[in-house]
């Protein structure tokens, strides 16, 4: 999966250790969004023709096209369902998340 990952982060132990200014390193994720979902998208690879439309329309960019098959980063998918709606081949279904 070629997607930005959570970074380990330790809170500053003293006021002096805080950043200089209102500053933070970019590319610095410290929490995931998976907990937002009620439904999660599941790709049926038999139906998927790799048109990449789902990759294109995902507002969060969680669909990775780097591998042979499209992969969904479930750490950051919010379950909005745009991918399933926009897929012209019915290859994505929104499945109720079981926690």
């Amino acid at each position, binding site marked *: 999966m*070629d*997607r*930005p990952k959570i970074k380990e*982060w330790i*809170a500053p132990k003293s006021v002096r250790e805080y950043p200089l200014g*209102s500053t*933070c*390193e*970019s*590319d*610095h*994720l*410290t*929490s*995931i*969004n998976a907990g*937002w*979902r009620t439904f999660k998208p599941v790709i049926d690879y038999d139906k998927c023709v790799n*048109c*990449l*439309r789902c*990759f*294109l*329309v*995902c*507002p*969060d*960019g969680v669909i*990775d*096209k*780097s591998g042979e098959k499209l992969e969904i980063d479930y750490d*950051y998918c*919010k*379950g*909005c*369902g*745009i991918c*399933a*709606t*926009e897929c012209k081949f019915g290859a994505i279904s*929104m499945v109720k998340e079981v926690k």
Partner: protein
Amino acid sequence: MAKLNARTITNEEYFYGHKACGGCGESLALRHAMKVLGENTFVALPAGCMAAVSFIYPHMAFTTNAMITPFAATGAVASGMAVGLKALGVENTQTIGFAGDGGTADIGFQALSGAIDRNDDIIYMCTDNEAYMNTGIQKSGLTPYGTKTTTSPAGKNLPGAITHKKNMFEIVAAHGISYAATASVGYLEDFLMKVQKAKDTKGTSFIHVFVPCPTGWGYPADQTVALAKAVVDSGLWYLAEYEDGEFKVNKNPKEFTAAKDYLKVQSRFKHLTDEDIAVIEEHRDKKWEMIRKKWNV
């Protein structure tokens, strides 16, 4: 220049892990703009949803250099960044300011105008979801006629907002800007092409991209791209460019799809009567009469 589409656009994400609502049209626009512009991009964006969801210490969603600007100042901060980089001799970078409809057409108007006047080498992208969403869905200068917002309620006496959208695209073009375009996340390849053109423009360029907001408009989140397409197909938004001093329309529908079908699936328009819709259609038709007469179709 290779055509930009799902296949050719990079797999890299430069705007990721943010806390925007699921189905947010604005985040889709930012995501793709960043893909076209790449890792050497310097981003400025004002108070608004995108700033609010991407910079909550210590969780940072941009992988590139990025900063929040004062609300009125997107155009000014982005200009300052670009001119500062130029003075430092830093090359092969791109500076972009993203601002919402309020941050562009209302409070940000002055700074945008100043930036274009100076022809500073920036892209200014207005992500238009037609209200001040981050503060709770209040009316802005780009809220269309008949929209129910929290400061333009629809009731016995008023149909929601009673003014039409400000013509930002034409106002910007009237500055004689190097490049300006309108776009929609319902037509993503067209949007990508325009971002690339803006990137290649020396001087200021402006893109006004239509981005639906499921929370503020009241529709199921999965319909964002479909609605962004429907608004263009029904003629209520147009895809156009201003380049070399000339207006060109990219898509000239032979027949518009029914405005009612686009409007009535959103809670913010649920209250519209046939009379209200007729006002909207009349305004649309007048606009397209002008477009077809004066612009290159």
